[in-house]
Structures are given as C-alpha cells and as structure tokens.
C-alpha cells in the first residue's frame, strides 16, 4: 500500500484530498502544521508528501528543505499544493527540492492523474 502525507492547515481541503487518495487505495496520513509533519516522519516513510506552503508554524519551503536534507527520505516524492500562484513562488518551491507544484483551487481529476504520474516517474 502506498502512503501519502497531506500537510495542510485547512481541514476542508484535507477532507477532499483524503477522500481522493483513499479512493486510489493510499494510506493517508494528515498533518495540520510543520511540527506534525516532523512528528509523523519520525515513524513513517510516505511515498508522497503533499505540502501546503502557508501553515501556522512553519512554511512549506523549509519543511521541504528539511525532508530533502535527510538521507532517509531520498525516494519520497514531494508535491506543493498551494494557493500561491506567482511564478516566483513556483520556482522557489522547486528550488527547495520539490518534485512538483500544484495550485489551488484544483481539478480533482487532473490533480490525481498528475500525482499518480509523479509517483511512476523515476527519481531524478
């Protein structure tokens, strides 16, 4: 079973993502802030992490850098999912080590397809 970690402080958004990934047979882990992400990563190694950027305690960029800095999570795919839509935000996300950047609001159908494609892609 593949595992996905969803990090977002908006419960209503988490609700929809949780449903979508469950439907594809994922085990879904949920974090509502940076601290919870770090906590979960101590025991779990997800295949995919979906990161919001604006969270209450820590922004997604630094979380992403933290994950990439550890050898433990080399094979983990990271995707940003953010309402920030500026070109600089996207570049910054990818520069910090993410594999993809998706914008809110999203189409459930395309988002899932792209997430699955990302998982099939070999590690760069």
């Amino acid at each position: 079973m593949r595992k996905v970690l969803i990090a977002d402080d908006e419960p209503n958004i988490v609700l929809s993502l949780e449903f979508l990934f469950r439907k594809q047979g994922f085990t879904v882990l949920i974090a509502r802030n940076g601290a919870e992400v770090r906590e979960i990563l101590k025991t779990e190694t997800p295949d995919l992490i979906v990161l919001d950027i604006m969270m209450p305690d820590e922004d997604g960029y630094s979380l992403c850098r933290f994950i990439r800095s550890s050898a433990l999570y080399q094979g983990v795919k990271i995707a940003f999912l953010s309402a920030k839509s500026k070109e600089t935000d996207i570049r910054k996300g990818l520069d910090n080590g993410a594999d993809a950047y998706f914008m809110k609001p999203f189409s459930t159908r395309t988002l899932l397809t792209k997430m699955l494609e990302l998982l099939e892609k070999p590690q760069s």
Partner: protein
Amino acid sequence: MVEAGWGIALALGYWVLLFVLALRVERKGKAQWLRSPYVYALSLAVYCSAWTFYGSIGRASSFGLSYLPVYLGPTIGAMLFPLLLRRMILLCKHYQIGSLADLLSSRYGKSVAVGSVVTLISLIGIVPYISLQLKAVSESFGLLMLESPFETATKPVFEDTAFYVALVLLAFTWLFGTRRGNMLEGNPGLVSAVVVDSAIKLLAFLIVGIAVTFWLYEGPGDILQQASARLDLRQLFDFSSTIRRDDWIWISFLSMGALFVLPRQFQVAVIENTQVAHVDKALWLFPLYLLLINLFVTPLTLAGIDHFGGNNFSSDYFILELPMSAGYSGVVLLVFLGGFAAATGMVIVETTALGNMAANNLVLPLLLKAGWPGSERDHNLSRWALNIRRLAIGFIIIAAYLYYRNISHWSSLVSIGLISFVSVIQFLPTLIGGLFWKQASRKGALAGMLAGFAIWTYTLILPSLASRGIIDAQWIETGPWNLTWLKPDALFGLEGYSTITHSVIWSLFWNCLCFVGFSLFSGQSIEERNQAKLFVDVQDYLQQQINPNEWQGNAYTADVRNLLHNFMGVAQAEQALKGFAKKHALDLEANPIADPRLLAFAERLLAGTLGSASARILLQSVAREEEFGLTEIMGILKESQQVIALNKELLKKSTELRKTRDELSIINQRLQKQDEVRNDFLSTVTHEIRTPITSIRALSEILFDNPDLEEADRQQYLQVIVRDTERLSRLITQVLDLERYDSGRQKLTLSRTYWSDIIEDCRASLKGLQEGKHVTLEVMISANLPPLIADTDKIIQLLINLLGNALKFVPENSGVIKLKVFLQQDFFEIRVEDNGPGIEPEYQQLIFEKFYQTVNQGLKKPIGSGLGLAICQRIVQLHGGKLFVESEPGQGACFCFTLPVLETVIVQ
C-alpha cells in the same frame, strides 16, 4: 682779484649752461640719456652738498677721520636700497605720492597732521642746511676776492654774493622745479642740472686732489712726512678713544638714515626715479661715487695742516686755499666751480622737495579745510597748488638767506649739517614702521616724531641759542631748576658723548618708544588700517592691481561709461559711477578724457565679474586702441549679456524642474510603498479567497463524480461547501467594506439609540455561540447614560466583532466576558474584557492590521478573515473615537473604544 672776476664769469657761465641744458631737456620731453642707471646714481650724489665739498676737510683737520662716518653710513645704507628704496619707489608710483610728507601722511590714514608735522620738522631742520650752502658759496667767493669770512658776512645785502646766488637759485627752482602740477611726472630739467653738478663737483675734487698731491707734493707719502713734522698726527687719527668710536657708529647710523629721509634724497631717489631697476645699479655706483669724492680728503687735509697750521679758522676752505697759495689759477677756479655746483644742486632739489611738502601737506590742506578757494576749486586747484609751491619755495630761500645773514656764521659747515640730519632722522622710525609694520598707527607716528623733535630742540637748538646769548645760558650749565639730569648735553645723566651723538641717542630712543608704545596701545581708524595694509602688503596689491598711472589720458569718459553700461546694465553702472564721482569729487561730464582713477575703478568693477585679465583687456581696448575695435567688444558683450540672461532663465527652469522631479520621486516612492501594500493585500485576499473556493470546488467535484457516496459523507461535504461559501461571501463583504472605509466612501447614518438596545441586539446575535461554548457574559452599563448618537448598525457590527473575538479566545466552560459602558468626560468608554490568553505586547499594534492573525491562535484557524479588527478600527475612527487594546499575556485582553457624546442629531 683776477680770479674773482673769472670766478664771477665762470659762475654765470655755468648757470647759463645749466639753464640752457635744463630748458632743452624740458622742451624735448624726457631725454633718453636721463633714463640711465648712471644718471640715477649721479643724481643720488646730490647727497654730497657744499658741506661735503668743503666741510669734510674742515672736519678732518679738527677731528681726523671723524669726517668718514658721514660717507660710511650712506655706503652701508646703499645696501638697503633693494629693501627700502625699491619699496618706497613702488609705493609712490602706485599710490601717486609726491614727497616724504605725502608718503607718511598717506600711510597713516591720509593724515593731515602727520603730513604737517613732517613738513614743519623738515622746514625747521633743513632751512639752516640750505643757508649753509649759501654760506659756502659766498665764503668761497669771498676767498677768491681775498676777503676774510668775517668781511664777507658783514657786507650789506646788495653787495653780498649770497644774495644774488639765492636769487638765481630761486629763479632756477621756480623754472625747473615747479613746471608740472603732477609731482610724480618728475622734473627732468632739474635732474639734468643736478647730474651735471654731481659730475663737476667730483671732477673738481679729483683734480684738486691730484694737483696738490702730485704737483705740490711728491705723492701721499711726501705729504704725510711733511705734515707729521708740524703736528702730532697720531693724535688726530687715533681710533683708540672710546668717545670717538661711539661717535663713529652713531654718526654712521645717522647718515645712513638721513639717506632715506632727507627731502632732497627722497626727491631724486624716489620721485625722479624713472625705472625701479636702476636701484640695483645704484647699489654700487653710489658708494663708488662716495669713495672717489673722499679719496683725497686725507691728503688735502694733511697738506692744509702742513701749509696753514692745525687750528686754522677756515680749515673748511683748505681745498681752495691750497691751489691758491700754489698759484694754480685754473684749479682754483675749478674747485670754486665744484663747490658752487654742489651748492646749486643741493639747494634746487632741496627747495623743490620742501616746496612740495609745504604746499601740499601744510598750506593746501589748511586752505581746503578753511573752504578756500571755494567753488572754483575743481578747475583751478592744480594752478593753485603750483602757485603755492612757488610761494613756498620763495619763502624757504628767503628764510635760508636770512638765517645765513644772521646766524649761520657762528658755526662750521659740518656741525650745521649734522644738526639737520638729526632733525630729519626723526622720520626714520615712522617710515620704517610704516613700511613694514601694519600696526604702526597715526598716533604713534605723531607721538614719536614730536617726541624726537622735542629732544632735538632741547639738546641741540636751545644750547646753541644759549651759547649765542639769545637765551639765558645759565641753565645749560646747571640744568633747569638745577636738575642736573635735565642738562641738555647730559640728559638723564648720559655723559661722555659728543652733543650730536647724545642727541641722536635720546631723540631716537624717545621717538621709538613713543612710536611703538602709542601704536600698540592706541589702535587705528579704518582708513589707517586700510592704508597700512596697502602699504605693508604693497607687493600683493601690485600683483593684483594696475598702476593707475598706466591708464593715462588716452581714454574717453564716454567710452568707459558705455563699456560699463553694456556690461553691468545702465542703472547699476550709473549708480556705481555716481558713487565714484562723489567719492573723488570729480565731474565726469566736465572732462571728456577719462581720469586715470576712473579707469582703475572701471577695471576693478569689471574685474569683479569678468576676472582681472579680461577686465584689463577690455579697458585696454577703450584706453589704447588695441587690435580689438570697441564696436567688436561691444558686440561680444551684448552677446554674452544675452547668453547670461538666457542662462539665468535656464537655471531658473532647471531649478523648477529639479524641484518637480524631487517631488515626483517622493510621490513615486509613496505610490510604490502603497503599491507594495496593495499587492500584499491583494495576494493575501487572493489566497484567502482561494482557500474556500478550493474546498468548494474539490468537494463539489467529488460529489458529482461519486454518486455512490455514503449519505453521511455526502451530508458532511455539502455542509462544508455551504460553510465555505458563507465564509467566502463574508470575506468579500469585508474586503469591500474595508475598501469603502479606506477610500472615504463609507458614510455613517447617524441616529439616536440607547445603549441597552444596542447591547440587547448584540446579545441576541451571539447567543448561540456563547451558549455553545458555555461562556458567561456580564454587562455593566452606568446609570443615566445619555443616548448614543451614531450609526447604530456599525456600532452593533463593531461590538459583535469584538465580543466574537473574545468568545473565540476564552476557554470553554470557564470563559468570562465583561462588557462595560460608562462615561469618561465627553466620551463613552466601552470595554470588552475577556479571560483568554491575552496578547503579547509586540502584537498589540499588529492585530489591527489587515489579515494579521496572532500566531498563538492555536492550530485550528478561528473563524475570521483577519479583517475584523481593521474594520472595527475604521468604524471607531469614523465616529471620532479611538480603539485600543490593553492586555498582559495570561491575564486576558481588554479591547476598549471611545465614542463622543453628541448633543444633537444631524439628520441626513
């Protein structure tokens, strides 16, 4: 008697020669041969008067080598030419100075008093000296006639040669010493005569010396041998006596100083100088002349002693008597001519110089001050000045003659000469101080000169008057009132010096003391300070300014005026010219030829704006017809004037532009700042809007794509969609609200309401929330509150917002919120207190900013947009109140606002 006849003929012939020569020189204009350093040096030799010619030998026969200091002093003095004389010449040429009195008066603030004092001392000191020359001429003539000097002196006036000599010299001086109004132009005729005089007297002295030494005797050794047989020469030429050594030093010093302050020396060395560079050659030529003329003094003296004995009454005339007794008629006549020439040169120059001083520094200032000659002065002033000079010269020569007739035969040539020297030496401290010491003041100069002159009178003149029985001689011996320290020949107990040395020491001592003392402690007027600077720093001024003499007569006043008009503008130029004309008492309209001062003034004016070089060129174009024509220059000026005007315009414009640019840049910065704020706001708003839209869209799609969803999930998803839609619309409303407040479009609808009603409305709105969280709400309203006049809906919105925030943060079940309303002076104060976590001090301002939500709100986002407090603040501000927070972390928070108590309702 044959020689006497020849003598008269020779003298007359010589005079005719001088007249013709001087006339030719004057007619031809400045003769070229006069502009030579050798001529200049010969003219300086006017120093050697008849006193020298005859007196040296007289003095040598009485006091041995003591005649020498009178020549040694000037020889040393010549070494100071580059330092002193050069400066004096520069000053006189530059500042239009015509005499020593003029120089000193000008230096000390153009002081009439200084000029008068110098003139008076000169007259009193020098007139006997002039009479001395008359005496020498008439006595030498008497010798030719084989008279004793006593016979000569007692002849009736009309048989007295001196009388006729005086008349001829007066005529000569009138003719050649007062030709020009402007003294600075010099008197070439006079100089030519002086130069011939100097040449003749040197020639005569050399020839008589050679004749006596080598014809009469067989060389200097022979003379020495013969004379020493008759007299103990060692006694005469002994240097060992201290008295004599001191005399040597002091008399050398006296003569050295006199070289610079004797009026005749000043006349030839400074006023008649044609070229400053001549000073450098005179530096050795003049001492050479002195050496040559003294070469045969000792042999002639010894020969005289050998022939006539040591204590001869008329040892002054050994030079004449020696060739006479030897029968050398030609030589006798030549010597007579030499002495005659020496006297002539001295008298004409000295009286010219004294005449200038007397007229310009004594008589004219007094006349002008007395308001005479009235309104005609402008036109006739220079004629007046000339006539006064002539008159003064007449008086001086008559005075000298009278002095000669009545007094001078009592003393020898040398002593009168030295007494004169001591009188003029009183100018020396004032002169040197004036040239090199800026602080030297008018009062110092006057005090110094008068003190020196007083000592001179007391130590030299009174005793000589007493010795002639003119005043009581008793006090000379004992001192006045028997005070020996006041004895005129041993003042303050100073004894053991000759009377001359004694007088020099004390007069100069008191002179210097008073001069320096008064200068240091009396201060200077502005005029004095200016003049002091001009004189002491003359080199600097010469480099910067032009010599006004150079701008002489060639320019037309109209041209200068036109030039100034064109450059400075008519009004300004006219104003400047008016001031100038007034200052110098000139009528610019009257004289078509520009006054040199006007040119200098115009140059200074132009130099102020154009730079000195350009100003000079411009003025040259007017004054001298240079390559540039006047019209071209005017063209250039007009053009540059336009350019200047244009530039001024441009400068003004560019200043305005720069100001505008600066203002724009400030506005731009403000706009950029506002833009940044707006961008931040927009991106935040966008983010805040996108969040509910995201969940609405995602959940809608899920509902749509999954018809087989369980009913519970479907219900949950729909509920979220509805709530997020509400949140979205609330957000949009608030953003629009805020925008209305910020743009000033939000208006208040005032009405009269009671606080109890408002609070009731709020309670009703929040009831559900409050009860769900089990929070206690306590309301405390002061009794008898006046009704509130405000926009009731806005106040309710505000209160709900604050109470809602409080509800959000208070703990569940134990939460307590207190609402207090009371009067505080003219304001209602409303406090919303909670027992929540409180707010850290650093956030107490930030929470009122848009979209700011405190970080310690907890992980779950409270319901709210982050715009609530920002809107609250605007509502309060629009009502004229203040919203603020008081909180200590852990102690809860209290949001307070004030609202004014209004009396009337403005119905809109």
